[in-house]
């Protein structure tokens, strides 16, 4: 797949070689983007964001709608003009507010997949891919390249079909072929799977991961689906109000959320109000007062909080253990009764009433179901309790 003479440099050489000397493919410094709403209200969609992405790495931007993740992606693509900051792609500055550099999207070495697929309806699958290939300056072996790309995404038979004749999943495969046919060093994904149904979404997600491992492009992937985010990400960037609040591997983000916001957004959570009582003498624990009663947590998690401070306590549903009958007395053990059972196939979800409060628990043993109204003991390890200051 040699590039035609004079054709674009970085696009044609495998991304991994180009970047051998560098360690980042996309570098964003202090990016800021403000909008003015119709009413005149100023909204900061992207607020002082810095981010670097290494070759072959997939970074997922995760957050609720309106948190600025799509705006950040579009700034990298060149579809939005940030108000301040600097962006480098493949070692080349594409945007710098101080130097007045603002490269149009067509001059940036990126590909993009859109939520709406954005396939050109007047072109067949083949023409859609060919258009992208030719637009990047490839003049030779265009046919081979297009054919290979369509085969790669598993739809060689659709080459002469128009988008209106395809299913959503097929359209998204064409869009994927269109993005990958030019061997881009960077691919941007704007919630590409949110419009296809669950089964196809699962399948496409797996193919995307394996393709990313083979082609080794650097990717930025926007989604609000936390499961998708965790499955795809090399690094997960959780966004809130235009800022990246945590950037780490999915495991780290899930196990060590930096804030109550991250803990609640990534994974499910029981979120309780609490007041710090103080350290439990002779242990590495602290005690907190909650609606459940006194509750123990490992002290490093709440070490910054003085006695009397307001706090939030987060416990993940899968960390709550439910047992029938009397459990050994001790800390973090309560009596409760099952309020609702939701059988979900591979696991079971329970609503448990403890005192006046309801807890959400989750069990992976789906054989011996608890019944509604059954009395249980509710327990969790102090080590799984997250403690955050209450804002």
């Amino acid at each position: 797949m040699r590039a035609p003479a004079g054709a674009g440099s970085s696009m044609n050489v495998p991304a991994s070689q180009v970047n051998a000397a560098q360690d980042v493919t996309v570098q964003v410094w202090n990016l800021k983007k403000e909008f003015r709403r119709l009413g005149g209200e100023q909204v900061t969609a992207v607020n002082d964001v810095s981010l670097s992405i290494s070759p072959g790495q997939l970074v997922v931007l995760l957050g609720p709608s309106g948190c600025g993740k799509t705006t950040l992606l579009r700034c990298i693509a060149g579809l939005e003009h940030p108000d301040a900051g600097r962006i480098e792609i493949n070692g080349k500055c594409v945007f710098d507010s101080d130097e007045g550099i603002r490269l149009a999207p067509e001059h940036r070495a990126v590909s993009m997949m859109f939520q709406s697929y954005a396939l050109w309806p007047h072109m067949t699958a083949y023409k859609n891919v060919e258009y992208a290939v030719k637009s990047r300056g490839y003049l030779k072996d265009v046919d081979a390249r297009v054919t290979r790309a369509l085969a790669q995404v598993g739809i060689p038979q659709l080459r002469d079909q128009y988008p209106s004749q395809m299913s959503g999943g097929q359209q998204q495969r064409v869009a994927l072929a269109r993005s990958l046919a030019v061997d881009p060093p960077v691919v941007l994904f704007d919630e590409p799977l949110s419009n296809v149904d669950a089964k196809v979404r699962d399948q496409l997600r797996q193919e995307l991961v394996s393709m990313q491992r083979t082609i080794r492009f650097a990717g930025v992937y926007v989604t609000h689906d936390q499961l998708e985010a965790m499955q795809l990400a090399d690094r997960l960037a959780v966004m809130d109000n235009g800022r990246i609040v945590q950037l780490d591997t999915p495991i780290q983000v899930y196990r060590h959320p930096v804030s109550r916001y991250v803990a609640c957004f990534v994974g499910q959570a029981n979120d309780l109000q609490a007041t710090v009582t103080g350290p439990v003498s002779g242990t590495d624990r602290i005690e907190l007062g909650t609606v459940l009663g006194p509750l123990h947590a490992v002290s490093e998690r709440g070490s910054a909080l003085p006695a009397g401070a307001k706090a939030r306590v987060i416990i993940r549903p899968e960390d709550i253990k439910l047992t029938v009958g009397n459990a050994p007395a001790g800390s973090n053990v309560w009596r409760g009764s099952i309020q609702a059972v939701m059988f979900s196939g591979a696991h079971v979800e329970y609503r448990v009433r403890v005192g006046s409060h309801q807890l959400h628990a989750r069990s992976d043993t789906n054989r011996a179901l608890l019944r509604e109204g059954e009395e249980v003991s509710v327990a969790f390890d102090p080590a799984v309790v997250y403690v955050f200051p209450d804002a």
Partner: protein
Amino acid sequence: MAAVLEGAPPTRDGTLLHFLKYRGFGIASGAVAIAFIFFFVYPLTRMLYAAFFKNGVFSTVSFQETFADPHLAELLRDTAIVTGLSSVVAMSVATLFAWLNERTDAAMGWVSKLLPLVPLMLPPIALSTGWFFLGHERAGLLNIGMRGLTGALGIDLWAEQGPINIASWGGLIFVYTLYLVPFAYLLVAAAFRNFDSSLEEASRVAGAGAWRTFRNVSAPGILPAIAAALFLVGVTALSNFSIPVIIGTVSRIDVLSVRIVRMVRDAYPPRIDEAVVLSFFIVIAVGVLFWLQRMITARRRHVTISGKSSYASKIPLGRWKWVARTLMLVYLAAASVVPLLGLFFVSLQRFWSSHITRQSFTLDVLQALFTGDNLTKKALQTSVFLGIVGATLGILIATMLMLYVRQRKGTFPRLVDAAAKAPSAVSHTVLGLAMVIALAGFPFYLAGTLTILLIAYLVIYMPQAAISTGSGIDQVGGELLEASSVAGASQSRTFFRITLPLMRPALAAGWALLFVMMVGDLTASALLATNANPVVGFVIYDIFNSATYASLAAIACVVGTISFAVVCAVLAFSRSGAGGQASQ
């Protein structure tokens, strides 16, 4: 190509070529926008000035003269009755048809597609002359046919005249209604289509009947569209000249648009001052309609629902289904084929009379249109030429303006957008009159030229062009163009390979619309054309006044046929090939 990826110039690069590539389009569009606003605002300003100032001195003489006319009240009353009644009837018919086609099992897909196109296929001048020939009390073809039928049955009620008389209040309102229904239908049917039918289904499931659902759920939901349709229909009715000039004249019902044209064309010396004052009444009426529309839409907040393509269950009408279908088919025939046939029939006779024999049929009248050096032939040529040039220019200008408006933010682009659509709120008669006042004399001296006609056509029909191209641009959608940019295509490549092909159906439809309206235009043409540069509208007006009816039928017939052929050809073209794929 390496340059494209590597060393592509940042936007601050100052070379002339680069400047033109990136700014040229914007500058050209800006200049076109300014020129357009000038030719819209300047004539109206001149007209306003002319109404209040005589030789530079403030004067209300023209107002006094106008109000001194004892027939003024009658004129205003008749105009209000004709336009008001026909608007209300047309709205009701259109809403009924829209409901039938979008919500019941009486729906016929092709009727729904064809209905809005009727005024395109048959220009109003052909519609009104057609019905004039069909419904004339003595010599009307329908009357002759019916009298023959009843005579054969031994009923001798209408020996010489009747039973239909198109030259009456009822006849006038009937033809107005035929003409106005499609304008309202277009908006109301679209509203029904876009209105999430699951809201109606929710109402039905909640126990409300069909009528209750319509009154409490559907009707409020499409209220904004009804208000918009009422405005459009009202303004169209006030502007229309072709129908009252033919049918109103013979039935001695005078309306404003005709009176204004007559004051300028037929009075000697032309009573332009009074015409200006009369045109103010039209402006006021349009203002009232606008206010009415705002009142209706502002009453409550409407949620625009962008639902999925809904699979609404159609309401079964039982045997009423066939009544409904017949009603719609009768309307379609009455608004298109029937008057066109009437025109053909009369144009094939030497003289139009109630006595039709086999010998009276001749091709002479039609032939005369195309042979020798006569005014009618010249008018046809000029009109078709103006139609082609005007439609092409109009679509080009509208595309530039709408791209400019869509791609930019700020006050000026918003102003351009408003200006491009504003002429639709000013009656054609008013605009035509303003053009006469502003452009005929100093400093332009365009009286009697093709240029003044072209300018008038472009300004008058810009709203239709802007709406067609604007909707075309909206259809292309932001992401399709962004996808092209991100794929590495330049601005011009994106424009020619993506934007233009995707806009083709909308552009073609807009072109056909403009062509037909310009060729069939009567108002501006009657006011602005002269014997030196005659156009169809001008000649039709003269022929009608001189009562050579066979020639009138012949020329209306030719115009109708040209319009019909052009619309069909353009629609076929725009739905073929890749463009057709895109429009699916």
